[in-house]
């Protein structure tokens, strides 16, 4: 313990030195900006600054790139809350309740809670990273294909709880999303599925155009022609900060989101965007007022936003402790390290203590910087809402188009965004939830690949899922949850159809709960 504190002190000395601070700050600011722009995410920001980092020392370079990474998680919530456009894929869940809060005039509190939750989660997760990196990393490595299958199935089961409406409708949306995720070259056999000769589809349909189209564009399509435009809100200072009740509602979700996000982020390849979905579902399940979700529940913002921030720290655990990238962004950071002659590997913490502790310390500092940066900006951003909607939405559309195009420089993505926008419009008209589609698109490739890898490894024996302890445990939990949700079948009260979730709330009930 003493040694850890000593090392940390040494790290702070590095992190607080002017040259490192400047780059940490630059990284955080750029990360926030990049996170705010729809479509363009931290990967783009990091790739952009990668060449610029070559001239810096290794520690400074990683500090800056890490700053972009978690900074983007702060910025991503801004457009999600204000305009229902996901700043990047991890902020999709924030769109739902965050935007609902904006419509109720609570945009300021939503932004403030998102920023605060991000800060708490970011800082606490760095503590976790600092203290637990090597053992957690070893645990993460023990996740093989069968464990992934169990984890992802668990994620899908959790998805069933995300729905306030009817379960068959949500599950059909999930199935739809999973099917969309099948587009592309099958990684196990090389067959090109459902891509109809379009080369750009070989990698799949892309989560960014789907998220931006399904959430942002569909919102524009639904709102732009309405007789009653969304009210221009003139916020007063008092309205910028959350009320005491709202703070109270946020505390536990932030805590749970932090833990959940961190654990999910550690697991290599799980894509930390799942963390926000899982957090949303958990919060909905545990909430005393589940009907509030979708209409502006504070927990629906606090939980996911905390989760995606702590997931970034979690994602750095395998990278720093073992030299194993848990996703594309840590992979780029590892490449940056290699370019500087630092070999990421299991000996990194011992051989390069300045790098490790310098990065850790700078993450503490960076989170504080971001909080200070984002809170006053709440006032600035909320004023954006004063722009009348008919002028606002073309601007949103332009940003969406350029953001989506910028990811791959491909017009195909713009087409996908438009198509998803149309689909989202129709689905919402017919009262189907669109969030499960996004989850499905993300999970499908991973789920299928892990399943077939598991079968390849076990030579076709399905018992592998029961014989491996971690996988068996997760599947067991999933089964219990499933049975629990089917309880109403036993009770067969007058209301069993609705309790089971076959039907959604009637429109009248929805209006009551508003």
């Amino acid at each position: 313990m003493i040694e850890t504190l000593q090392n940390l002190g040494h790290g702070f000395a590095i992190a607080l030195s002017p040259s490192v601070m400047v780059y940490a700050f630059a990284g955080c600011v750029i990360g926030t900006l990049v996170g705010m722009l729809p479509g363009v995410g931290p990967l783009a920001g990091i790739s952009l600054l990668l060449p610029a980092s070559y001239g810096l020392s290794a520690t400074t370079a990683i500090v800056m790139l890490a700053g972009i990474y978690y900074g983007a998680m702060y910025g991503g919530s801004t457009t999600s809350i204000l305009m229902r456009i996901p700043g990047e894929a991890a902020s999709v869940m924030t769109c739902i309740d965050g935007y609902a809060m904006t419509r109720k005039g609570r945009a300021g509190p939503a932004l403030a809670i998102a920023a605060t939750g991000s800060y708490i989660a970011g800082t606490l997760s760095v503590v976790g990273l600092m203290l637990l990196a090597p053992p957690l990393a070893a645990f993460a490595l023990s996740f093989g294909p069968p464990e992934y299958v169990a984890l992802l199935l668990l994620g899908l089961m959790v998805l069933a709880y995300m729905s306030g409406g009817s379960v068959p409708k949500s599950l059909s949306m999930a199935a739809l999303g999973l099917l969309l995720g099948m587009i592309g070259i099958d990684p196990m056999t090389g067959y090109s599925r459902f891509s109809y000769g379009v080369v750009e589809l070989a990698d799949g349909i892309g989560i960014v155009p789907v998220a931006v189209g399904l959430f942002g564009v569909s919102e524009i399509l639904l709102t732009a022609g309405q007789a009653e435009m969304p009210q221009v809100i003139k916020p007063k200072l008092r309205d910028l900060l959350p009320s005491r009740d709202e703070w109270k509602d946020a505390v536990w979700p932030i805590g749970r989101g932090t833990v959940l996000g961190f654990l999910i982020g550690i697991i290599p390849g799980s894509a930390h965007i799942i963390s926000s979905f899982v957090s949303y579902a958990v919060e909905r399940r545990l909430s005393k007022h589940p009907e509030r979700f979708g209409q502006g529940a504070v927990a629906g913002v606090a939980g996911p936003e905390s989760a995606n921030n702590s997931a970034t720290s979690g994602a750095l655990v395998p990278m720093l402790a073992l030299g194993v990238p848990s996703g594309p962004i840590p992979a780029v950071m590892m490449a940056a390290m290699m370019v500087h002659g630092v070999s990421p590997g299991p000996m990194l913490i011992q051989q390069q203590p300045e790098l490790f502790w310098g990065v850790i310390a700078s993450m503490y500092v960076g989170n504080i910087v971001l909080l200070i940066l984002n809170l006053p900006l709440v006032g600035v951003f909320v004023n954006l809402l004063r722009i009348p909607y008919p002028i606002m939405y073309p601007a949103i559309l332009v940003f969406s188009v350029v953001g989506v195009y910028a990811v791959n420089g491909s017009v195909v993505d713009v087409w996908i965004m438009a198509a998803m926008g149309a689909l989202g419009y129709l689905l919402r008209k017919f009262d189907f939830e669109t969030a499960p589609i996004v989850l499905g698109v993300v999970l499908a490739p991973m789920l299928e690949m892990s399943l077939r890898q598991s079968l390849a490894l076990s030579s076709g024996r399905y018992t592998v899922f029961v014989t491996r302890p971690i996988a068996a445990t997760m599947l067991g939990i999933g089964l219990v949850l499933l049975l629990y949700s089917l309880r109403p079948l036993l009770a067969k009260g007058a209301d069993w159809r609705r309790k089971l979730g076959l039907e959604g709330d009637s429109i009248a009930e929805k209006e009551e709960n508003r």
Partner: protein
Amino acid sequence: MTTRGLVVLLALALALPAVVAAQDFPTRPINIVAPFPPGGQADLMARPTAAAMEKILKSPVVVVNKTGAAGAVGMAFVANSKPDGYNLLMALSSISIIPEADKLFDRKPAYTMDQFAPIALVSADPTILVCRSERPWKSVKELVEDAKKRPDEISYSSSGIYGTLHMAMEMLVHAAGIKLKHVPYGGAAPALTALLGGHVDCMAAGPAVVLPQVKAGKLRPLAGWGEKRIAVLPELPTLKELGYNAEFYIWAGMFAPKGTPEPIMKKLRDTVRAAMQDADFKTAMDKMETPIAYLDAPEFQKFWDNDAKMLADAIKRVGRIEEAK
């Protein structure tokens, strides 16, 4: 003016624009397309090369990432662009694999290899065979014997079906006459993670990536696919030495679209040749622990043809997975 004089004048007049163009070239920034995401192998090769070329040409040379379809998008982009020398490609050995894989599935190929004119080879790292240190095999011989005793049981991970790491293993499997279980992953990094986690038994990997793990004692290198031993692991025998006819390199080379005028090609080749000598370039490559393996265009073409043929054979042997039961 004699007829001969006129002919000479005419010839000069026709050649002059090309020469002038070459002398003026480049007038705009040159794009080097890296068909993989930033931080990937092609990208890491392209950036120091671009920086060195920029110093020599005194004109901007920019690396552009065009990702997708395991590189096919970026490669197709350069293949179809104007052959004016402003769009170049930094490609890896997978350039030879993709058209073959397309042929296998009766797909219209995203591009064909004869749409490219090679400029130079920049690096060529032989893959090395690694297994977890806990596994009992101390040499390739032991692994092969074990594999013969229990066919289809020893597993290896790869970066993807028909990918470079898969093809490398395929060559060994064919040369040694054994059957191994192939578990494809979505990239070299997940494949390495799986190996470190003990979920698969071995894999073929690029040396720069696995070196830290080897040094930390987590992985044991068994042999290399090169013709010669690699500098960073001098005690590691090559498969050729051990009697297996398998040679494979993860190489990176620069290409231009076919039809780029000869003077411009010459200028590009000269620039790349000089870039290889540049001190900063050498330092950058050293830091990445990647040896420079320069080959000028004619030798590179031979190397490429040879390599492509080996890969095409391997792919045809593997065939479509569903039919190989």
